[in-house]
């Protein structure tokens, strides 16, 4: 087939990923026009920190949504794992553990707690046959309550050394961002190039066909929720490092931001459709908008309205874009 250059350019515009990229660049230019400090190493450092904090749960949410489910519990999981991880770190440091070893143990604890919450979701969905929305609503509430219970409402720990690490790294990349980059890269390969990823799409697209093809649907679905929990737990650890402690309010509402990023990135909430590049672009747009509005001194209240606008536009794009399925 021969494609004329004009056609190719028009084809790019039909590609939702390309539109997202244009939007991202346009928004950033807009902020820089209003305040010339936007394109600076300092600000990009901030953006990368916030982006990496949001990226893991968004990618986890993408896996869940592509498999035909939804995970509302990631926000609470961040809170409860951060609080329990902080308690572990406080305990270790009171026994004269060094900063790095205690943080490494804290990371394992946080990821583990997240994995436990994810496993609970998995049991509720695959054994008790609850729909994912209800199952993760249960753990959302329980997690938020447990975070308050374990912390008695107050931030656990005071760890200014850890807090300084949240901004150290290489150029605009903090250590945290580099770790996130590696994890997201690996998960992207898994989703798009391996049989695990293929099964994820198949199950979200038609679970009956997947089961008939010999795929162990329940085991796969369970693994997706466990992974989502573990990534939320790891994010809880990142937040510990950012504020030097575990606070029970941390992460509340993150699930909606993650779902918004996935939807803006072009994934379908009924499952089977979605790209990791779209989700990362979605996270980037949300982060840049949220941060940029503060940057140009607009009241934060407008934030949610603007985000709502982006979700609406993305959803409409999805229905008119030729490359996506209509049901």
């Amino acid at each position, binding site marked *: 087939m021969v494609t004329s250059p004009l056609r190719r350019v028009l084809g790019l515009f039909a590609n939702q990923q390309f539109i997202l990229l244009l939007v991202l660049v346009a928004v950033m230019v807009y902020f820089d026009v209003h305040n010339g400090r936007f394109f600076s190493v300092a600000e990009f450092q901030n953006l990368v920190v916030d982006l990496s904090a949001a990226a893991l749960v968004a990618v986890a949410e993408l896996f869940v949504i592509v498999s035909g489910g939804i995970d509302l519990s990631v926000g609470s999981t961040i809170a409860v794992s951060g609080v329990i991880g902080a308690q572990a770190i406080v305990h270790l440091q009171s026994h004269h553990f060094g900063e790095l070893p205690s943080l490494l143990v804290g990371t394992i604890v946080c990821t583990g707690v997240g994995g436990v919450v994810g496993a609970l979701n998995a049991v509720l969905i695959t054994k008790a046959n609850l729909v994912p929305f209800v199952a993760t609503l249960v753990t959302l509430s329980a997690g938020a309550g447990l975070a308050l219970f374990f912390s008695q409402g107050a931030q656990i720990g005071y760890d200014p050394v850890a807090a300084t690490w949240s901004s150290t790294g290489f150029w605009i990349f903090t250590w945290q961002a580099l770790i996130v980059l590696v994890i997201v890269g690996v998960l992207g390969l898994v989703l798009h190039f391996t049989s695990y990823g293929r099964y994820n*799409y198949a199950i979200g697209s038609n679970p009956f066909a997947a089961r008939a093809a010999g795929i162990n649907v329940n085991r796969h679905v369970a693994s997706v929720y466990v992974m989502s929990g573990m990534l939320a737990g790891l994010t809880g650890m990142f937040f510990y490092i950012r504020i030097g402690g575990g606070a029970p309010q941390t992460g509340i509402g993150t699930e909606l931001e993650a779902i918004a990023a996935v939807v803006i990135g072009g994934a379908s909430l009924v499952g*089977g459709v979605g790209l990791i590049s779209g989700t990362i672009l979605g996270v980037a747009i949300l982060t840049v908008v949220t941060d940029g509005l503060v940057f140009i001194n607009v009241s934060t209240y407008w934030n949610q309205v603007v985000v709502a606008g982006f979700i609406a536009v993305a959803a409409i794009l999805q229905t008119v874009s030729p490359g996506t399925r209509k049901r």
Partner: protein
Amino acid sequence: MSSEKEPILELRHISKSYGSVRALSDVSFKAYAGEVIGLVGDNGAGKSSLIKTISGVHSPDEGEIFVDGVQRHWKSPHDSMAAGIETLYQDSGLAPDLTIGANIFLGREVKRRGPLGRLGFLDQRAMERRALVELDKVGITVPPSKRTVSQLSGGQRQAVAIGRAVMWAKHVIILDEPTNHLGARQSQEVLKVIRAAREQGICVLFISHTLPHVLEVTDRIIVLRLGRVVRDSLTTDYTVESLLGTITGLNT
């Protein structure tokens, strides 16, 4: 092709009850390679119980199943698939968001060679290419593209689903209402694939309510009523009227 005398699938005295409901009683029949068999009956006649028994979704209370002369006991649908029986259920079909190649190889993915393959990385190009070749063998021509199945017509989609079953079945494919919800021309595409499967020496069990399709494509028709085989004759022995009468039990 195997000898005419040796059935590829044989059921002997199969019975199955759900609680107090007797779904199948003493069902026996033989099916041969390269034969298309119609399985008809009114609602509740035991068609789906029979399919589920053959494909290993559940095991019979009594009776024996032989495939290629060997007695089999299914513990799960995997066992029947491994023995060369593919089943296409009404609701299973294909995953609409995956490409044709991805659907054809779903659950049997071709991995890359070397260490990447051991990590689960797929050889997507090989799968897409082989899918087109295999579909072509059963008379299905689809354009080579990365399009998803959702962009195919209903008939093409069903043809691809059957082509998939034909490709993986060594002995038997079971088709549950494959022409349901399809238009006349689209149904013909499906029937064409069934004939191609017969040419390849596969035994096709064709379950349908659409009697003209059954009469058109099958070699033999087995009629079930209230869980029993009431008639098992060559298709040429039936007319639409006599078939209908046998199904409803109004004339025998």
